[in-house]
């Protein structure tokens, strides 16, 4: 793997990863409606994007859903991970282990369809949830995001020094106090990472949301999908550029903060 082969393969790999993104950004500044034919520089599509009520409304829906389901899934995922790593024996342990990791391998179409059918039959028998919308999307996203949070939290809980918890218990702290004063602060960075992952996964989901949402609650991916299904459209390029710019800036800031933290010897 030395000589010319490896560098060529790596350059090819990164061109493959970034060329489509670069072209997406370049053509968002295109005057022409034909996305891939250059018609001169213009910021016209950004203006149209900001006037598009449907896109703005659905972006707001998506942010609300992502915020709520990331927060809920951190609570449920952390509790699940805590129970599985700290309680060695209880009824249903095997069941919980299976249920908490299974959403990771479940095809989205199955999760979406089965949850929709559950919501429909619950509405028929219990009267709740009345109709489908924000609540049902949040419940669905929480369920599949909790699995990802649980995996991250479990790894951290297994690797942390358990003698800290033992010491607190020996000094007379109640289990609740040990959890909030010792365990939680130690695993907090992992939970932040889990929250961010859950937030991204929820913002990104099209399939599950399409199944469980109702009229009037379209998420951003649902609106984008219905637009690009019919072909390319330049205002989607503008939206993509804004998202890519936001992610790049966020990652640069995070990287810079981490570097500064490293230099301080943290």
């Amino acid at each position, binding site marked *: 793997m030395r000589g010319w*082969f490896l560098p060529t393969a790596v350059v090819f790999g990164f061109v493959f990863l970034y060329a489509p993104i670069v072209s997406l950004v370049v053509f968002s500044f295109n005057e022409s409606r034909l996305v891939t034919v250059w018609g001169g520089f213009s910021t016209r599509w950004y203006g149209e994007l900001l006037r598009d009520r449907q896109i703005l409304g659905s972006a707001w829906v998506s942010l609300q859903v992502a915020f709520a389901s990331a927060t809920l899934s951190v609570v449920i995922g952390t509790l699940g991970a805590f129970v599985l790593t700290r309680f060695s024996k209880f009824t249903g342990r095997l069941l919980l282990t299976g249920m908490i990791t299974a959403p990771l391998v479940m095809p989205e179409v199955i999760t979406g369809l089965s949850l929709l059918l559950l919501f429909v039959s619950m509405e028929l028998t219990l009267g709740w949830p009345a109709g489908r919308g924000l609540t049902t999307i949040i419940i669905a996203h929480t369920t599949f995001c909790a699995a990802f949070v649980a995996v991250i939290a479990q790894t951290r809980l297994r690797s942390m020094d358990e003698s800290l918890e033992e010491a607190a218990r020996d000094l007379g702290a109640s289990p609740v106090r040990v959890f909030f004063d010792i365990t939680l602060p130690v695993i907090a960075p992992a939970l932040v990472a889990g929250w961010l992952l859950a937030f991204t996964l929820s913002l990104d989901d099209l399939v599950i949301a399409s199944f469980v949402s109702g009229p009037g609650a379209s998420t951003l991916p649902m609106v984008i999908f219905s637009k690009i*299904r019919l072909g390319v459209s330049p205002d989607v*390029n503008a939206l*993509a550029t804004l998202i890519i710019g936001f992610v790049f800036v966020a990652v640069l800031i995070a990287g810079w903060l981490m570097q500064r933290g490293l230099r301080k010897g943290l």
Partner: protein
Amino acid sequence: MNRDNLLTRSAFWRATAWGMGKVGLTGRSLVIAIPMLWLLVFFLAPFFVLGRISLAEAIIARPPYTPLFERGPDGTLEILASLENYRFLFEDALYRNAYISSIRVALISTIFALLIGYPIAYYIARAPEPRRSILLLMVILPFWTSFLLRVYAWMGFLRSNGVINNTLISLGLIDSPIQMMQTDFAVYIGIVYTYLPFMILPLYANLTKLDGALLEAASDLGASPMVTFFTVTLPLSLPGIVAGSMLVFIPAIGEYVIPALLGGPDTLMIGRVLWDEFFSSRDWPVASAVAIVMLFLVVAPIMWLQSVQNRREEQ
């Protein structure tokens, strides 16, 4: 907070704990109950509903399926359940082809992802800092942007008047555009592109652990770099290859968005068939039956494979 307050507070908590213990409710069982109940209701229960509706028949009503029980004319309760939907799935070649084609597409995409991802992972694992961190970040970065928009980017690339065709025509390499959109080729590209980070990360994690002394020993004993790679590096990175391939194969097999946007009308994939059954034909019972069959033929083998893999790692 004064001492009295603290005492009454702890007494209150102790009394509550004692009271709850009397009725069998301990803090411990409460902590177990929250994730357990949530998952029982919103993860496990839906599969029973799915199974029950797969036995129903589609009707034009709200909800669009027949009820499980019906009062007969003489007032007796009849159970309405039939395996008709399953018989239909096994007899109609469409569903069998979709299943086989899903496996084929996922397998071919996984192999391409491995071929593209392995050199990158190998290179990053060997690179010195800070280049290593920067390259690693560059691999993960696209993952944080929208999945849908990354697939959309390829639509602009592969269209008949897209970037690739326009470039090739202006270079005089081809006269008329090549059909790339709406082909299986476009679906492979979409899947490889979307899931490439999932292939690279486990491979990278595995390759950084590789003991450099082994490579030195091999070359000291006269092995060429090529021989060293195939006899030392490749076999030792097998766990990383397996982990990465699973992470690409699993989401690829049930994929809906990529075949819907990049594939042609004849790109059959099981996830797409289920979606169309539900949203286009509005046949909920058949869609449920497709989901149940998928659970047994796709999800169950994957979970079994993973448990085998986990057990092997523990040993």
